[in-house]
């Protein structure tokens, strides 16, 4: 079994009046592309900066490659960071920016030159080596920041919201680029992001954070399909959350009394009791103007309140009995044509196995 490259053990960081990071523990494996995902103020950046040594240490231990980082200043840690603003030194050329980290640690000039060239080639910036940062676009500046960090051959590369300053097209491109780089270099990347798409598309594993704590750590698919809590379910993609009360458990699953749906039976691995939420993704629902033929499906009769057209799909909002509001993703195919009108009476239905029971 490989040992983790980074171990976070009971790390807590308090600011006056707020707990930025609240007793967080997890391991990151070598060569992993790991994402810290959460809304702003959830403590993800603070945690990243604590790993980098840029934040005052709180309590708990941060262990990088078997070495405890307590008391190790930022300039002696085997990690490097790509800053949100890139922080490419404006008074140095691209080449000098990349060489800086080698120069200041006393690497011989003869070794610096080839390493800088190599790093610049890796991010396809070789041709721009003599430019100044203000002659570069945002995307190019980011490549310089990447090369500058990677040339140090860190054990872990830390990326703080690296794509947030780029426009949508470029962002998509850089997502692929980052994933490619990570595979080529084969070191651990830790990326901080508030953008779930970014995390889902790039990361091997994602830690979802909220109010200083880690809510769930899982791969992208598991996180989307099997969220553990209402927060994670709601934060990752869109989801319908339906209030329900558990009335019994049997082999077939958990029987609940759900708002607007009445009595439903949902397959569930564990036990559940009391007030829960039934969660179902909008794309699992189907709309029809007839009651569903399969009796096992969960279904609700309602009226279309609003249709938001997105080209390939439409988001349809259906008001059902008891004030239950359901969001449904409908493919804009021939079947949908003519159905999606405000005020029209429809049946929304889905398979019980697509339903999650969330207690938290």
């Amino acid at each position, binding site marked *: 079994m490989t040992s983790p490259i980074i171990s976070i053990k009971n790390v807590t960081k308090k600011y006056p009046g707020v707990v930025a990071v609240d007793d967080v523990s997890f391991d990151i494996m070598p060569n992993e592309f790991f994402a810290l995902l959460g809304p702003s103020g959830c403590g993800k950046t603070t945690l990243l900066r604590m790993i*980098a*040594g840029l934040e005052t240490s709180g309590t708990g231990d941060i262990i990088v490659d078997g070495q405890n980082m307590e008391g190790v200043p930022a300039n002696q840690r085997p990690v490097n*960071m790509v*800053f949100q*603003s890139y*922080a490419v030194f404006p008074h140095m050329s691209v080449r000098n920016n990349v060489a800086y980290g080698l120069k200041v*640690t006393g690497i011989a000039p003869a070794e610096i030159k080839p390493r800088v060239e190599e790093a610049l080639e890796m991010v396809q910036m070789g041709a721009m080596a003599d430019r100044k940062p203000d002659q570069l676009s945002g995307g190019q500046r980011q490549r310089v920041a990447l090369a500058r*960090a990677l040339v*140090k051959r860190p054990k872990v590369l830390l990326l703080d919201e690296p794509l947030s300053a780029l426009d949508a097209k470029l962002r998509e491109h850089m997502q692929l680029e980052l994933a490619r780089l990570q595979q080529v270099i084969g070191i651990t990347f830790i990326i901080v992001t508030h953008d779930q798409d970014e995390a889902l598309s790039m990361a091997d594993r994602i830690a979802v954070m909220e109010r200083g704590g880690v809510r769930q750590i899982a791969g992208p698919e598991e996180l989307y399909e099997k969220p553990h809590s209402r927060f994670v379910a709601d934060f990752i993609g869109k989801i319908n959350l339906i209030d329900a009360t558990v009335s019994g458990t049997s082999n077939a699953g958990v029987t609940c009394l759900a708002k607007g749906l009445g009595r439903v039976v949902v397959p569930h691995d564990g036990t559940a009791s009391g007030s829960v939420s039934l969660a179902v993704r909008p794309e699992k629902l189907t709309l029809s103007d007839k009651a569903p033929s399969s009796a096992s499906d969960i279904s609700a009769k309602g009226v279309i309140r609003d249709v938001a057209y997105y080209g390939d799909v439409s988001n349809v909002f259906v008001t059902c009995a008891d004030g239950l509001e359901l969001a449904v993703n409908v493919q804009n195919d021939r079947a949908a044509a003519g159905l999606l009108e405000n005020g029209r009476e429809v049946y929304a239905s889905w398979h019980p196995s697509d339903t999650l029971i969330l207690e938290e």
Partner: protein
Amino acid sequence: MENWKQNKTVFWVTALPGIVWLLLFFLIPLALIWGMSFGEKTSIIDIEITGTLDNYIRSFEAVYVKIIWKSIWISVISTAVCLAIAYPVAFGICFSPARWRPLLLLLVILPFWINLLIRTYALIAVFRTRGTLNFTLEWFWNLAFLDKLIGPFQPLELLYNNGAVIVGMVYVFMPFMVLPLYATIERLDRSYLEASLDLGASQWRTFFSVTVPLTLPGIVSGIILVFIPMLGMFLVPDLLGGTNAIMIGNVITDQFKAANDWPFGAALSFLLMYVTFAALALRAFIGARMKAGVGI
């Protein structure tokens, strides 16, 4: 911003008061002494502008070159000391808790608003032979029984020398240096410093390789802001330097008061003006280079 032709009435109403006043009480007077610097005295009160360069040539006589040189080196040393004190102070204020910053900044620049004359006078009371500093030194002297061992304390002659002038200049102008430094350090993006540390540079290396180059515009502004008035300073050498530490400002004053040689005084003042213009041009040049990102 709108083109001035779009609203000529408002343009002239807002433009004229400043233009006229500046012309009457600043530019015309300056033109007058500039003209006078090329003039000759024809009698006690009459001056004729003859286009002569004699006044400038006279400025390069040994006795005046010595004074000009002294004015320059006293100002250079004083400016350097100001920078050495003001940079850490401005830096410390920028990195102090946000709610303290306005108060600390106010505390630094408040003395600057107190009358220059009064501040210089306050220094006399500290440094004179029977002043606070000598008095304190004597107290320590006696406390250490040095009066029994070596003899009674001999008060130090702290005033009326070049050192006193430098101390006075630094005391008087240091707050002024803090302002531009504070303004640039405050604007400095902290992530540059963090990036430098993250890349393995030590704190000192970060300071000299990143902080100083990126705050250079503030340093240059501060130096110019302080150096020019120091060069033309009249009060501080007059009160603290006595006859031993005459600077160019004292010579100019003399020409207009006691010596009554206005054309020569005018030439000396315009030498100061030329230095000022050169310094401003230098600042504009450095500013443009920084903006163009060519770097220094």
